[in-house]
């Protein structure tokens, strides 16, 4: 159990957070044929878009209602309507996912009402395109919250209220958390399918932001969860929400359909993977595939080898709550000490279970300070932590979003037995690469003690 310490300072130094609309846009992009639409000034969209391009190295179709001074004062409904109609005619998306921004929320627009009105009035023009809306002011929450709210919007907009849970006894809903990469999502799909189950993963950026080269120009998201599959989620036998922040979308889905929900806070680590594999075995009534048994044994062996390197190392980690939970539990489970844990949101249940004395809601400035004070051997956070790592002369494990100075972050897998092993090896190798040669000064038994002047040593002649 850790104590969550809220922000105590006024100046944020090197932010850890990205804003909620960005998380929402990312989630919308995990739906087939989708276009995210930010209701705000165009800068909101441009910054988010550029950051996603830097991370995914992909064209990112995010649109904006381009609020201007006049619409900010008089109301943005016209801009929203115009944007929807333009997107419809230009891109013919299957889904338009609206995310509000701090600007429109501060103005106090009745977005939900306006969206309803527009949809009613323009029903013919917008036929064939589903429009959903998530309230994601920039000043509340971060990526995880935005991602979860967009997922809720998609469920509310596309999953009908039914009571046919279990009609497809082999169908499983997986509500994927923001902390999973496209590579992770694919690994989850493979794992679920290996039990003979049919998963519907939502949002599924493994089909859209996984870096492929389509044969034709696609203006919307390349792929993602098919709308039909989302519509059929009420027929599944079970829902798994991966990450605490996906509990709310999971509850919404359970409310609408009665499909029972299980929240898996993490899929990283031996125990987490065991719990998920056991759940899939129960659900499917099938034995655990030999491949998974082998992978488990490999992970156990990797932990035996890895603990010799990771054990007793001091690590400072900054990440959104569920990712922080996944990474710190893995590290602490190998005997590492978490000398700094920094996160973004006060409300998450994941934070209470971080294996550190306290979790600071803060920024990368806090991470740097904690790492320095705790003499951390490694810092783990997204790419913006590189400045701190350079100043501290410590290795930097890149986790989370954005990772813009390394290629391939979207393909990294850290879930399940094999993914946990890969992450653990990456961590252990960072330590190994930092090998510090022993030195006479560092091993001198009198290094921390004053030496009497009379006995002041004459150094060895070499």
């Amino acid at each position: 159990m850790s104590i969550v310490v809220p922000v105590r300072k006024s100046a944020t130094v090197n932010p850890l957070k990205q804003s909620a609309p960005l998380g929402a846009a990312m989630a919308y992009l995990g739906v087939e044929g989708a276009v995210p639409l930010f209701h705000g000034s165009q800068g909101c969209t441009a910054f988010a878009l550029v950051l996603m391009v830097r991370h995914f190295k992909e064209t990112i179709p995010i649109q904006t209602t381009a609020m201007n001074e006049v619409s900010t004062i008089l109301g943005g409904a016209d801009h929203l309507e115009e944007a929807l109609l333009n997107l419809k005619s230009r891109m013919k998306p299957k889904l338009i996912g609206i995310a509000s921004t701090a600007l429109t929320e501060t103005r106090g627009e009745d977005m939900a009402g306006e969206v309803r009105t527009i949809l009613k009035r323009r029903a013919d023009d917008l036929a064939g395109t589903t429009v959903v809306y998530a309230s994601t002011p920039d000043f509340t929450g971060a990526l995880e919250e935005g991602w979860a709210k967009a997922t809720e919007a998609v469920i509310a907009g596309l999953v009908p209220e039914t009571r046919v849970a279990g009609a497809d006894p082999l169908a499983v809903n997986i509500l994927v958390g923001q902390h999973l990469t496209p590579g992770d999502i694919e690994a989850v799909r493979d794992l679920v399918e290996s039990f003979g189950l049919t998963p519907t993963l939502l949002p599924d950026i493994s089909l859209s932001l996984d870096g492929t080269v389509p044969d034709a120009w696609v203006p919307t998201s390349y792929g993602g969860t098919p709308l039909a599959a989302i519509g059929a989620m009420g027929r599944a036998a079970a829902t798994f929400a991966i990450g605490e922040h996906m509990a709310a979308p999971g509850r919404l889905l359970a409310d609408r359909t009665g499909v029972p929900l299980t929240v898996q806070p993490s899929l990283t680590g031996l125990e987490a993977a065991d719990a998920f594999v056991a759940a899939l075995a129960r659900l499917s009534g099938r034995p655990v595939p030999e491949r998974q048994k082998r992978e488990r044994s490999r992970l156990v062996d990797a932990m035996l080898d890895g603990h010799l390197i990771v054990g007793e190392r001091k690590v400072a980690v900054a990440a959104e709550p569920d990712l922080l939970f996944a990474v710190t539990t893995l590290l602490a489970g190998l005997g590492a000490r978490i000398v700094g844990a920094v996160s973004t949101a006060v409300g998450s249940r994941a934070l209470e279970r971080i294996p550190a004395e306290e979790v600071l809601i803060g920024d990368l400035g806090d991470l740097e300070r904690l790492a320095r004070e705790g003499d951390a051997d490694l810092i783990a956070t997204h790419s913006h932590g590189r400045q701190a790592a350079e100043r501290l002369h410590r290795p930097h494990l890149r986790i989370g979003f954005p990772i813009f100075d390394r290629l391939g972050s979207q393909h990294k897998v850290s879930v399940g037995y094999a993914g946990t092993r890969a992450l653990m090896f990456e961590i252990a190798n960072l330590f190994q690469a930092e090998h510090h040669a022993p030195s006479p000064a560092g091993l001198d038994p009198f290094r921390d003690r004053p030496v009497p002047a009379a006995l002041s040593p004459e150094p060895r002649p070499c």
Partner: protein
Amino acid sequence: MSLQAKIQDVFNEPACDKNLLKDEKARKKGCSKPLTPGAAAGGCAFDGAKIVLQPITDAAHLIHGPLACEGNSYDNRHAASSGPLLYRTSFTTDVTELDVVMGQGEKKLYRAIREIVETHAPPAVFVYSTCVTALIGDDIEAVCKTASAKFATPVIPVIAPGFAGAKQLGNKLAGETLFDHVIGTAEPEVSTPTDINIIGEYNLSGELWQVEPLFRRLGIRLHACITGDARYRDVASAHRSRVNMMVCSAALINLARKMEERYGIPYFEGSFYGVEDTSDALRQTARLLVRTGADPDLLTRTEALIAEEEARVWARLAPYRPLLQGKRVLLYTGGVKSWSVVSALMEMGMEIVGTSVRKSTAEDKARIKQLMKDDPHMFEAIAPRDMYRMLKDREADIMLSGGRTQFIALKAKTPWMDINQERHDAFAGYDGMVEMVKKIAAAIHNPVWAAVRAPAPWETAEADDLFAPNFLADALVTPTFGGPVLTETVLADTLPQDAPALPAGAFLKAFAGSDAQELGEC
């Protein structure tokens, strides 16, 4: 002297207790047991020679042989340097088939020496013979002699081909090399009445630096460490030191004895592993220095330092006692002198369930017996299968051993700590003991053990239920999996109140056997 004569000379070691007990005939046979084909493990004489000489940091070490000898073995130990790094660069003549057939080995060796001298200008080049170059009759000594004269750089032949014997023999042959070709070939710039050499300490992981300041604090000057963190010139002038301390194993006893004979330097055998041993090493050094003319005041100062350091080390060890009290340790090591470590671990309240005495002397064994009053579990060697069984049955809470047995412990999911020469941690002197105890505590209490010992989900008692098909519906209502990674189920209480009358959590059963037609499409 031929290699055979040299080996005979090495075996006939008058300073060796064991050797003295033998009759004339047995003495000639030598002290190394013949290797058993099919059941031999461990390094060869070449390996042993390189272990001793390579820590001379500013010298070039050139291995004259086919690639395997050096290519497969270089950069494998952690002898640390405070300065020059040339010793870590691997040089080999990489003798090829054509070189062997055409007899070009000597020429290639000569050219290799020239290239090294021209490129790196080292104070000396050590040239190691190997099985193949010894077999084809390359006259390495002649090449070295010529090269020395030609390049005005000491080029030292190290004649210890692998087939000559085991690693320990190689250690001794390296000692002979130093005695014959290096020590006494230079005069020191400075010489004091408290100059000492330490023989057989290789500064692995920087261990020399954990103890050298203790000597310095007493005004004792370490002139040459043979060969940890050594400079060639210091070793070459080591004959002017007043006392030799010979560390641990009797590997270089021939060198210590011959230095006493030729240069009148008294020596003693000591160790820096364990609290008492470290104190004893300081005490004996002081005593011998005073005997050779140092100020007798040194004895008083030494006792004062020992008292201060011992009080400090025990105080620093005390916090680990609660963590280690009653923990059972299996010691399996040859390198570290077992008894001194045993005594420190017992001081921590640990129970020694066994200790190997493979390389211990009769005196060591007697001390271990004395320390472990009740049931001295001393053994020469344990077969890997038996060791695995012991550890698997949790007969020990930790094994301290070397890399060779590391995976026996790890595969048995038992804490393990490296205590042999290949380790990365420095365990010498008073500080080293604290470091070792700290590491043992961390290894035993690492949370990984609980995780890796937990059964897989399919190995648990409920596994049968787990895979029973009719378990499906119940499992969904009340999942039983979980554990430290908390898994919550939110189901019944989230169902809307006005939902069709379904008993909470029972709807799946209610629909069992229904098909999509009856349920209607969404």
